[in-house]
């Protein structure tokens, strides 16, 4: 029969069927009566011989149905009806699940776009980051000669490109602005497979220092500055007083590094970019068919040859790793930990919902028993209950998606700085599929226990018990207990993780920074290279700024530094110690800073020995440097460093005398141990000026933020075109750095709070149910003279057992799992005892509160009421 006809005529078919069966029974009864049987007995006999009427009808109808789908639809209709009848239950379950599924969907979107999706570049699996292996196995960028060396080989890489981070002052057209840019070699964009929206890439000529100035602009910059006008191509931008021609516009979906608005060519030559000046991020594209291990082997063999040919003084070895890993960086452990956390939240949500379902199943005993006695097949019943739980989980998933959409925005806002190409993260088809699969899996996970439970057990018992709750459902009780133990265990794991992160953060915030950020204002000042091409002029200008700022009211001391601590910027390289032979395998490296004015006093850095740098250290006086304690510990552990000589390694070579030792400022990320630092007076290294930009640090008695206008005004009196950017207090700078550490604490804290709340509800629910079940027992006990304390002991004794078992399991799991967090921790062991004791106490306390309410209620029961109702 044609299936469509079937659909329309099915009602007719069913009517025929039941008419037919009825006729069959009637005929049989009549025959039996004629045979001499009483009518009543005949009806019973006919029924018996016919078999299970309901089941037969159902089976006969199923012949006409698309069986699974149709009975599924029927179950679904029934499920919706059940939900409408008990909206409070449904809403609770759906919301709990929505939170669990939503959190997972949001975190999965991030994991998907960062850890799972390939980079949006052509042949991205062949793109490799090539880095120098420096002192203490640190991996650093490369110098320009090294880059040229690697570009010159063709055994390993098909092509090699480089980029560096920089910033320029954009003065026309439009508002003057300090812009973060990247400088890229001509190979980079073609290597990434970038198809420019319009224009062309850089030429070899433009790469050179003396070549024609060219710039490629981003799509968003093109829109914001030129309103998408095609004539912008070929137009000019004034960058650091030089006119640059716009030669290309990037496509709108281009993402790379910091997503800069402008890309400039390297504009370097071997003279201007010294060996050992490591600032270039080098990217190589492997030759087709070359594997990573092969490339590493070949590079290890080639490194000496490459360095010699380019006379680059490069490191003794290079480190090659996929560009992808480099870009993902340290966001991987964070994301994995986050994914684990939300998975635990979902498990707890499932346990909670399963508990709710079990409680409802108890109330539905009678309904289920009746359905079984009317001939419902067991599988059919299980399927129906599963459909109901699927209905809950899918509705939870839909609301969860809404939560995920909202949560994702906050997540990206919180973590954005720590994530590569975070602007790319959104809910997409994969996330939808993931959420759908998760919802279904969840529904089965929490629905299976109650469904199997319903299919089991003695029918007669069930009918007898009916709607009344009584002992004897020990199976259900056991399952509920197991679920509660699981919830407590999962919560403890999450709490332990959050506790560790919190402790780690507190440690971090109170770590000695090596300076006093209070009342210090900082601002970035990039000096126009055109206007101050003469180094002496620039030094004078910087000194003038220091002098005039110091004369402002409230100002105590003023100085310039190349890189502020906590700014994330740093420059490091190798250097020589007089009288110490160079060990090529282990070149000494240090962070290099250049100082104008009284930077040390402005930052309140402690002077350990000798003297600070001061205005007497000029290009005419003998070369001097100041080093920090870390430097002394590393290179002069048993000697007095004062009077020793080192060659700073950049600019003109020559020995400088160490005249002072200062405390260690936590120069790099707070987690890393500070790298030994050399401070040189800028006045003695004028040849480096054109590569450096400066940060002004002003210590004032007044509110630092209130001084921004005053100080900028003062500087503009010296040069009205000076671009001043990033004006902020040192405390804000540190805070922005700490935020990257604080935000994960918030996240984990929030998730474990949700988990804890769910677990508390779960415990409360189970205990309430336990009390309800034992109502008559408790009533009898009270009637027989049991005291409140006895009743409390009875109820709490049960709860305490569950909590203890749950916590024991939770602690065991935590010890095994929190190791995953170790890379996110600072100064705290993953097995930190105080943390574990603390979170255990917190959990135990909350569990007791959750248990206490039903227990206290039990003591207030009125025995006469209870027993009368029995």
């Amino acid at each position, binding site marked *: 029969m044609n299936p469509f006809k079937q659909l329309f005529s099915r009602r007719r078919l069913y009517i025929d069927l039941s008419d037919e069966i009825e*006729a069959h029974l009637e005929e049989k009864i009549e025959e039996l009566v004629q045979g001499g049987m009483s009518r009543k007995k005949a009806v019973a006999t006919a029924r018996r011989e016919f078999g299970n009427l309901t089941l037969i009808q159902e089976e006969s109808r199923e012949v006409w149905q698309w069986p699974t789908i149709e009975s599924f639809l029927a179950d679904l209709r029934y499920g919706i009806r059940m939900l409408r009848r008990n909206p409070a239950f449904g809403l609770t379950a759906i919301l709990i699940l929505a939170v669990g599924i939503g959190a997972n969907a949001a975190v999965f979107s991030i994991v998907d776009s960062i850890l799972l999706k390939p980079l949006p570049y052509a042949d991205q699996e062949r793109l490799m980051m090539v880095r120098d292996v420096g002192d203490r196995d640190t991996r650093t960028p490369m110098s320009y000669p090294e880059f040229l060396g690697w570009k010159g080989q063709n055994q390993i890489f098909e092509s090699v490109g480089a980029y560096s981070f920089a910033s320029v002052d954009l003065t026309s057209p439009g508002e003057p602005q300090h812009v973060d840019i990247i400088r890229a070699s001509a190979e980079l964009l073609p290597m990434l497979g970038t198809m420019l929206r319009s224009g062309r890439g850089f030429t070899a000529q433009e790469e050179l220092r003396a070549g024609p100035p060219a710039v490629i602009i981003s799509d968003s910059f093109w829109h914001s500055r030129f309103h998408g006008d095609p004539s912008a191509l070929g137009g000019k931008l004034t960058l650091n007083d030089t006119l640059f021609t716009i030669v290309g516009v990037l496509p709108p979906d281009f993402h790379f590094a910091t997503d800069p608005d402008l890309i400039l060519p390297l504009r370097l030559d071997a003279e201007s970019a010294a060996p050992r000046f490591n600032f270039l991020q080098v990217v190589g594209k492997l030759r087709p068919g070359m594997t990573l291990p092969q490339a590493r082997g070949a590079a290890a063999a080639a490194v000496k040859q490459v360095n010699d040919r380019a006379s680059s003084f490069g490191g003794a070895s290079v480190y090659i790793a996929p560009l992808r890993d480099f870009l993902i960086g340290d966001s991987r452990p964070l994301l994995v930990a986050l994914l684990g956390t939300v998975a635990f939240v979902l498990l707890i949500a499932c346990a909670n919902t399963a508990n709710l379902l079990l409680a409802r199943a108890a109330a539905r005993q009678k309904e289920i028993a009746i359905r079984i006695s009317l001939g419902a097949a067991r599988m059919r019943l299980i399927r129906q209950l599963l459909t109901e739980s699927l209905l809950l989980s899918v509705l939870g998933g839909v609301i969860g998606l809404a939560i995920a959409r909202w949560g994702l925005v906050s997540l990206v806002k919180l973590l954005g700085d720590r994530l590569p190409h975070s602007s790319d993260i959104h809910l997409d088809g994969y996330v939808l599929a993931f959420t759908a699969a998760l919802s279904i899996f969840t529904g089965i996970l929490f629905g299976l226990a109650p469904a199997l439970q319903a299919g089991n057990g003695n029918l007669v018992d069930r009918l007898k018990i009916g709607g009344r709750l009584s002992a004897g459902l020990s199976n259900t009780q056991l399952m509920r207990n197991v679920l509660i133990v699981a919830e407590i265990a999962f919560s403890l794991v999450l709490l332990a993780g959050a506790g560790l992160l919190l402790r780690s953060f507190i440690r971090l915030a109170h770590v000695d920074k090596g300076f006093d950020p209070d009342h210090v204002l900082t601002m970035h000042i990039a000096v126009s290279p055109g206007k101050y091409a003469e180094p002496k002029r620039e030094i004078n200008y910087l000194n003038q700024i220091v002098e005039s700022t110091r004369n402002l009211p409230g100002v105590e001391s003023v100085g310039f530094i190349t890189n502020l601590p906590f700014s994330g910027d740093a420059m490091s390289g190798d250097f020589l110690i007089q009288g110490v032979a160079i060990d090529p395998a282990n070149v000494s490296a240090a962070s290099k800073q250049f100082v104008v004015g009284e930077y040390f006093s402005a930052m309140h850095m402690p002077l350990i020995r000798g003297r600070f740098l001061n205005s007497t250290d000029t290009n005419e006086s003998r070369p001097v440097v100041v080093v920090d304690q870390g430097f002394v510990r590393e290179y002069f552990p048993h000697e007095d460093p004062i009077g020793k000589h080192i060659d700073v390694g950049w600019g003109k070579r020559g020995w400088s005398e160490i005249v002072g030792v200062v405390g260690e400022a936590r120069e790099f990320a707070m987690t890393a141990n500070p790298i030994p630092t050399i401070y040189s007076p800028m006045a003695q290294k004028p040849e480096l000026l054109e590569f450096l930009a400066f940060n002004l640090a002003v210590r004032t008695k007044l509110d630092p933020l209130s001084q921004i206008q005053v100080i900028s005004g003062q500087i503009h009196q010296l040069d009205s075109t000076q671009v001043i950017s990033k004006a902020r207090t040192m405390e804000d700078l540190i805070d922005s750095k700490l935020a990257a550490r604080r935000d994960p604490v918030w996240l984990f804290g929030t998730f474990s709070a949700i988990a804890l709340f769910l677990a508390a509800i779960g415990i409360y629910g189970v205990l309430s149910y336990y009390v309800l079940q034992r109502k008559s027992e408790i009533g009898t006990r009270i009637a027989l003279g049991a005291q409140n304390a006895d009743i409390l002991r009875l109820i709490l004794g049960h709860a305490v057992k569950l909590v203890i078992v749950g916590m024991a399991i939770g602690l065991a799991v935590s010890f095994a799992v929190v190791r995953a967090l170790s890379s996110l921790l600072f100064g705290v062991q993953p097995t930190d005892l105080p943390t574990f004791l603390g979170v255990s106490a917190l959990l135990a306390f909350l569990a007791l509160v959750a248990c206490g309410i039903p227990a206290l209620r039990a003591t207030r029961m009125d025995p006469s009421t209870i027993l009368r109702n029995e």
Partner: protein
Amino acid sequence: MKLRRQRDLFPGALEMMILRTLKRQPLHGYALVQHIKRSSNDLLQIEEGSLYPALQRLLKEELVKAEWRISSTNRRVRTYKLTAAGARHLVHEVSNFERMLEGITRVLARRES
């Protein structure tokens, strides 16, 4: 739970017997089951109801047709009639069955000797 029904002898057996019975004459459900019971000398314990799912399957595959008629005892009954496809199907099934039966018989006979 004693809800499990007695199963057919083997899948398709009931359908085959129905088709065979209907080949001789169109019958309605009740008469059909009585006929099968009688012709098997009550050796086959058939739950009367189990006939109906089988009849629905045959109807769906268009091996039989049904129509409401008035029976000789003046009842309104739904009478089933073999279709041409049903007759062909029966021949096919019976020959299959006979081959299977022959096989089984041989195996059993060998075992006894």
